[in-house]
């Protein structure tokens, strides 16, 4: 990998990987101490694929499915929040643990500070409403619209769900169409069905259109 133009450096081996890993950890600690780490992120494995999770000082700001392209999600965070972004797994230990418990069926509520800055206006209003839908329950898009005081804003509720920056944690998967079909989901319908099955205490649903 050495980009040297002189062959004398060809003998350099990549003994550096371990050193860089260690220095990276030190950088994260120093950045944290100097309050320079605006966005910390890590990935976690889950039954619905690898999730990217990211947090600011304010709280969890983003949960992203692989479908959303994690590199693209980080790039968007860089532009909309801050480019001071580092892979800092320990800053997200609590989130990772609660997610693991949720997917194991051992947790019904997330107790985490949330940063809603990626959702503005009515979309944010919808998200704060979604948090009130209990584990294992579902509501329709029109019920959510009515609950926000804008009963005709059904499509806007759909958009708010589709652009939810905190899926799983803010349970937009608990919102269905009035006819009982799934509607849409940022992580794909299969994932929505799997989360609903998990919360209903069933094995993962393999047919995404049956609900």
């Amino acid at each position, binding site marked *: 990998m050495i*980009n040297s133009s002189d062959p004398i450096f060809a003998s350099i081996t990549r003994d550096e990987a371990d050193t860089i890993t260690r220095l990276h950890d*030190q950088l994260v600690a120093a*950045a944290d101490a100097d309050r320079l780490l605006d966005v910390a992120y890590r990935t976690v494995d889950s039954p619905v694929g690898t999730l990217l999770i990211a947090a600011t000082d304010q709280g969890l700001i983003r949960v992203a499915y692989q479908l959303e392209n994690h590199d693209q999600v980080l790039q968007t965070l860089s532009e909309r929040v801050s480019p001071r972004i580092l892979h800092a797994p320990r800053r997200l230990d609590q989130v990772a643990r609660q997610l693991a418990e949720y997917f194991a069926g051992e947790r019904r509520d997330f107790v985490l500070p949330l940063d809603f800055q990626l959702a503005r206006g009515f979309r944010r209003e919808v998200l704060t409403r979604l948090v009130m839908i209990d584990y294992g329950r579902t509501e329709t898009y029109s019920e959510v619209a009515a609950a926000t005081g804008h009963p005709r804003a059904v499509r806007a509720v759909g958009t708010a769900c589709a652009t939810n920056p905190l899926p799983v944690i803010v349970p937009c998967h608990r919102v269905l169409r009035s006819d009982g079909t799934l509607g849409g989901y940022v992580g794909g319908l299969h994932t929505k069905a799997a989360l609903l099955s998990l919360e209903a205490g069933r094995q993962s649903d393999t047919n995404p259109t049956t609900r």
Partner: protein
Amino acid sequence: MKRPFEEIVAQHGPTVLRVCRAVLAHPDAEDAWSETFVAALRAYPELDDGANVEAWLVTIAHHKAIDALRARSRRAVPVAEIAETSFTTDAWEPPDDILWAALRALPAKQRHAVAYHHVAGLSYADVATIIGGSTDAARRAAHDGIRTLRRRYRNSQQLPSREGIRS
């Protein structure tokens, strides 16, 4: 369109480490790396979008290295002793540290020119901006440095131990 800083560390971290090792002995090299990236993280939001990130990082590393060398000399340790100290330390050193040591033994201008052009891959024009002087002077310094380095490194490889590098 600023990339996440993590990508900057991943892409340029190894190069900056080589540059630091080329101009500073262990453990100063790693300290300089850390200081470089903390300073870069601090300034990153204000960096021009079109900037040459590698040249920017090497420039910061250059200043951190000079600070470190000044701090050393303020502690009144003769230069020859520094080289020796770095070899008697128990700390782990990479297998090619003989090459780095030979590089660090070059006169300052040659050392920086070689590190920034041959190790970091910057153009002679960028090297000249960092170390001062003309582009031609940077090219000459790098050329002279490489010639000395090739001679010394070859000699040191024929020696059974690290002792040889001191001679």
